[in-house]
């Protein structure tokens, strides 16, 4: 606690009006609490947790941000994912890597030297991936002559996706320089390549591609701040 006070600095501003008459000057002491600036690195722990569920295969996402001012952070995510979309008539697996780059704005006014955030952010996302149609059944709606399930897989490589993303989240410093964060995002596809005579059902980083070319995502991250300086 003592160390805490040493580290803070005091700025006292005196206001004097005239040389002849001395007024009672009020020392308006504004204490500036410094917080750490630096590179924060972490991982998305929701992906390993979701891997335990049936609907998700595997994924790894490394998150990082760099504080550029009191309120603004430059942020990026880098990841790799494999996901199987099991639909009524098709089963397909998407596999690939993605990167997201953007900014976070912290709208939360911290107490003292606390370092928590309620942030909104914007990202540009890019993914390169492949999609394999594992199996499918022609949709005939006819019980008399049912279609067979075709299980010959076909893979289309070199698919890409570009999207923009808006996100909202919370971040809390649980120990010195260790943060946990939860955020949700809304994604709008800018451009995506579909396999020939098929459709991209899932793009890594974008998640499920909805009919309107939008998507949703959430992140639960744990990260460590490498402090460069205090400001």
């Amino acid at each position, binding site marked *: 606690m003592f160390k805490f006070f040493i580290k803070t600095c005091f700025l006292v501003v005196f206001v004097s009006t005239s040389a002849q008459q001395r007024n009672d000057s009020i020392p308006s002491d504004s204490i500036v609490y410094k917080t750490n600036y630096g590179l924060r690195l972490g991982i998305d722990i929701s992906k390993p947790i979701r891997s335990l569920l049936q609907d998700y295969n595997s994924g790894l996402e490394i998150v990082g941000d760099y504080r550029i001012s009191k309120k603004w952070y430059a942020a990026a995510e880098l990841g790799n994912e494999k996901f199987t979309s099991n*639909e009524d*008539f*098709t089963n397909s697996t998407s596999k690939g890597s993605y990167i997201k780059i953007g900014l976070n704005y912290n709208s939360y006014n911290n107490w003292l030297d606390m370092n928590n955030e309620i942030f909104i952010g914007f990202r540009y996302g890019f993914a390169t991936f492949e999609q394999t149609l594992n199996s499918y059944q*022609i949709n*005939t709606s006819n019980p008399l*002559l049912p279609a067979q399930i075709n299980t010959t897989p076909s893979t289309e490589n070199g698919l890409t996706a570009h999207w923009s993303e808006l996100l909202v*989240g919370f971040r809390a410093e649980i120990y010195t320089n260790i943060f946990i964060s939860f955020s949700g995002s809304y994604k709008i596809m800018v451009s995506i390549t579909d396999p020939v005579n098929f459709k991209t059902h899932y793009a890594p980083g974008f998640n499920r591609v909805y009919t*309107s070319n939008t998507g949703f995502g959430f992140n639960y991250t744990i990260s460590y701040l490498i402090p460069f300086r205090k400001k």
Partner: protein
Amino acid sequence: MKKYYLFLSLIALLISSCEKDDFCIEPITPNMIVRFYNATNISDTKAVNDLTINISNLDSIYTNVSLDSVVIPLDVTNNQIIYNFSSGSNLDILTIDYEIEEVFVSRSCGFKAIFNNVTITSDVSNDWIIGLTETLENTITIPTINDESAAHVQIFH
């Protein structure tokens, strides 16, 4: 208040991401539509009495009905299907040969089949079916069956 709105919008995002946004409403694999015409006056439709349609060893699609048009499925696992068309005790056999093209429709509908170079051949016995064309020939080829917007085949009897 600001925090409150942020929290609400986050919850809204979570809820909306769980919605199923797709139900299969697009047309899927088309059936073949057959219309029955009067062989002596080829521009008039003519209902078939006691019409029974079935595929060998399978349940009947129509049994003892009186209709001037029928909808019959084609087999997407084969390039041929043989139908028994009977009117009362008169039986005619229709052999339908085709090529299958698989076309992706949507996430919820999956793939549909469309049928190209469809050749329909009626057996020569002419028990009740007299012809498949306006010149009353026993065979006809249709370039494609890709929707159900109109009749594909005319049967004159």
